[in-house]
């Protein structure tokens, strides 16, 4: 992504060396005033933070220690929000004070590179929403649902503690360092900080990881839409709706974004309601009931076309719709949970927490719970958004804490709400929905018998509940609807119908949820394919320069085809997998995502070390070590575990042996073709795991090397070169957080008095 590297060095570098314009009010709050304000603990402030700590403590006590027969959902809200507030107020301040050390006297790229297009100073609250909409998607809605297999507590702890100590730290640091480097991308920073080997490994790993992530997101959509005429119709309608919006914005009323989004939203609601009607007609069922393989192929063809169509026609308008829905849905879900306050009957630790043969995802709690929930706790993909796009829009350096750290806390809260939706439904129902058809048998009777045979405490599932729930949400069947999205949709429908509309509205809410998840995922698939295509073009361009030209059609189409082919192959593999695609592939998704996080944190580690901040290096080293241990252990088990359910190669060997012995069915595979598919799939998945982990180890090793070198240079007293853009004086001021402090208010009032022409005048601009 763009961001021209600027290697010019300036003699006036360094803190405190930025000469500010004396004709203007100061562009930053005076350091001593700010310190004094922060350190002054008024009785009111003490009481407020004591209350927050107390409420959070009580909530954690209710969740973790009391663990009654039932626990009210509101305790999850209190435990998470209070922990976020404390993490934000105290831990992120430590990071700010000792690691990032923002200086508001320095201009941000949005100021010194201002072009009115890519580099635009953006109000901090607006940018918070913008950044949040870019990082949050279907990921935090899916992972926690699958992780509910282990009970509510492990997932809750990891989502809340993980985000405070790892996920939000990564997002904040990457955003800050990218901002200091003119908005450079993670790949560019990796090359600069880690050298050619580390940089190249990071690039290849990123590319592969994107393929896996897009493929598995697509798999979630396929599983949600299979055999669902209502879902296929309403999600399919988003394409003509987006095309209409694109044409409207391009030719009819350019720039009327809000207007067209509202029109699109109304059409979307009409598509959901219309889908219900269509699904009740015979022709509707005949046309729109599609099996998984057909939908997968449809998605692959769609993915290719969408990625080569101009952005204005499909991607941009759908992005508006998706953002609009994202904010609406999340506000609505939060309100519903607070108003309805469902009672949770799921145990804190389920029977599967101590075993490694869970039907939803295989493997022991450590490490597999920590890779199943990636988005919401620690998501490496965010590093691609936090570098590049958002840093070009930040108004003042100090705001990165609010936008980067705070934005990720918000995503974590979305993950908690998704977890709540998943655990608010009947536990038997949960396992019937999320276990592969090979286990449940696919019918309500077999599924109920199988779930009851698991011996889960308090679970007594009747076939009636399964068929009744399916009828309520307007689906033919809900047995083995794996992937997380249908479960979340049932949970959400269950909560929302108590809030608005009653049982009669359940089908609408279910399809509303499927619709927005599909919308988020399709946007991510499109954008992911495009970004990956450009990365590939750029890489090939190093050998065949012609490929670097973005406008060269054959190159663009070829690279798009390669990327779509790559994720399409993984998608088809998942769809046809006799073991149930989510079950085998989702761990790979989490591992891939967190290896990317490890790569991003490794780059941050090298940067912090080069700054000479060794005393507080642990702030970066802690999440890096955790992510590295979790992902490398998970990869190791996926590669070397002798348990076929966990280890890809063990499974591969078991099936190969069965084939060699002339068996015609083995385990869940009922034919020779299915057995051959398992052998092929496990080999591919196994080798992908090997490649991921090797690349990541290379990146982490080069980062550690860079860190040690930086330490040695400091010890010898030699200066370490940093890659920041030269400091330039800022000529604007804006508060750092959501609510301006008294000192910030005073300074804002001073700036308001400055005549407008003086305020916006920018020296040295062409």
């Amino acid at each position, binding site marked *: *992504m763009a961001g021209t590297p600027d290697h010019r060095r300036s003699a006036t570098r360094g803190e405190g060396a930025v000469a500010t314009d004396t004709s203007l009010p100061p562009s930053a709050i005076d350091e001593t005033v700010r310190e004094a304000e922060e350190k002054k603990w008024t009785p009111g402030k003490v009481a407020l933070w004591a209350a927050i700590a107390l409420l959070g403590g009580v909530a954690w006590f209710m969740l973790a220690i009391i663990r009654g027969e039932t626990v009210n959902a509101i305790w999850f809200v209190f435990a998470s929000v209070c922990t976020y507030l404390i993490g934000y107020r105290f831990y992120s301040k430590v990071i700010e004070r000792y690691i990032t050390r923002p200086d508001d006297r320095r201009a941000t790229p949005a100021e010194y590179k*201002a*072009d*009115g*297009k*890519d580099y*635009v100073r953006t*109000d901090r*609250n*607006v940018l918070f*929403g*913008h950044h949040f*909409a*870019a990082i*949050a*998607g*279907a*990921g935090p809605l899916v992972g926690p649902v699958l992780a509910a297999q282990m009970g509510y507590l492990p997932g809750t702890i990891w989502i809340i503690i993980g985000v405070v100590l790892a996920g939000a730290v990564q997002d904040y640091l990457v955003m800050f360092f990218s901002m200091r480097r003119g908005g450079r991308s993670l790949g560019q920073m990796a090359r600069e900080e880690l050298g050619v080997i580390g940089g190249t490994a990071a690039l290849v790993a990123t590319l592969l990881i994107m393929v896996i*992530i897009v493929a598995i*997101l697509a798999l979630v959509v396929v599983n949600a839409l299979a055999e669902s005429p209502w879902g296929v119709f309403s999600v399919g309608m988003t394409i003509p709706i987006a095309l209409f919006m694109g044409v409207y*914005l*391009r030719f009819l009323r*350019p*720039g*009327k*974004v*809000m207007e067209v*989004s509202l029109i699109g939203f109304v059409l979307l609601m009409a598509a959901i309601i219309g889908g219900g009607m269509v699904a009740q007609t015979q022709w509707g069922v005949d046309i729109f009931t599609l099996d998984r393989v057909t939908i997968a192929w449809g998605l692959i063809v769609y993915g290719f076309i969408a990625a080569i169509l*101009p*952005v*204005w026609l499909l*991607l*941009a308008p759908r*992005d*508006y719709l*998706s*953002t*609009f829905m994202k*904010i609406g849905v999340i506000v609505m879900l939060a309100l519903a949970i607070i108003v309805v306050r469902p009672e949770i009957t799921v145990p804190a630790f389920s029977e599967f927490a101590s075993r490694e043969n869970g039907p939803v995802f295989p493997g022991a709690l450590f490490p597999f719970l920590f890779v199943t929930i990636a*988005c919401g706790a620690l*998501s490496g*993909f965010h590093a*691609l*958004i936090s570098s*590049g*796009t958002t840093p070009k829009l930040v108004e003042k350096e100090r705001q990165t804490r609010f936008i980067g750290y705070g934005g990720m806390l918000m995503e974590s809260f979305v993950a908690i709400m998704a977890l709540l939706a998943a655990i608010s439904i009947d536990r038997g129902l949960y396992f019937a929905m999320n276990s592969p058809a090979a286990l449940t048998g696919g019918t309500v009777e077999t599924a109920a018998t199988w779930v009851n045979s698991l011996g889960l405490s308090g679970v007594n599932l009747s076939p009636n509940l399964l068929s009744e729930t399916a009828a309520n949400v307007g689906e033919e069947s809900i047995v083995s609807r794996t992937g997380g999205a249908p479960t979340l949709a049932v949970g959400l429908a269950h909560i929302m119908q108590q809030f608005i509309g009653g049982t009669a509205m359940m089908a609408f809410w279910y399809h509303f949820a499927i619709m927005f998840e599909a919308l988020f995922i399709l*946007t*991510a698939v*499109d*954008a992911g394919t495009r*970004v990956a295509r*450009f990365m590939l073009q750029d890489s090939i361009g190093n050998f065949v320069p012609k490929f670097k030209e*973005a*406008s060269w059609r054959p190159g663009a189409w070829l690279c798009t085809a390669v990327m779509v082919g790559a994720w399409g192959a993984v998608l088809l593999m998942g769809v046809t997998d006799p073991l149930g695609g989510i079950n085998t592939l989702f761990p790979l998704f989490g591992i891939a*995502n967190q290896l990317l996080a490890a790569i991003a944190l490794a780059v941050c580690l090298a940067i912090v070390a080069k700054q000479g901040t060794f005393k507080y290096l642990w702030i970066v080293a802690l999440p890096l070590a955790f992510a590295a241990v979790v992902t490398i252990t998970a990869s190791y088990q996926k590669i070397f575990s002798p348990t076929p359910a966990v280890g890809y190669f063990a499974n591969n060997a078991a099936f190969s042996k069965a084939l060699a012995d002339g068996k015609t069915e083995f385990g869940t595979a009922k034919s020779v073709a299915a057995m051959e598919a398992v052998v092929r799939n496990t080999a591919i998945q196994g080798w992908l795991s090997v490649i991921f982990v090797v690349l990541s180890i290379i990146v982490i090793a080069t980062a550690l090397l860079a860190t040690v070198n930086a330490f040695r240079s400091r010890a010898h007293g030699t200066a370490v070169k940093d890659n920041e853009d030269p400091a330039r004086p800022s000529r604007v001021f804006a508060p750092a957080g959501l609510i301006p402090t008294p000192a910030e208010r005073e300074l804002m009032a001073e700036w308001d008095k400055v005549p407008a022409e003086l305020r*916006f*005048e*920018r020296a040295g*601009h*062409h």
Partner: protein
Amino acid sequence: MSTGLAAVTRGFRGFARYLGGVLGADAYTKYLEHHQASGHNTPPLSEREFWRDRTDRQDSNPQGRCC
């Protein structure tokens, strides 16, 4: 009563403006502000031209969307 209504209207307007900001609906206004402030001699792009340019540039400069 009317002050209450006015407050609601104001709140709604504020929310709409915020949502518009998040969607990027105010991009052209900000571009004009920038153009004026930086003292270009050339006339600014028209609204239609600006939005065309904006989406066309995204064709060769895609923005990531997360999972």
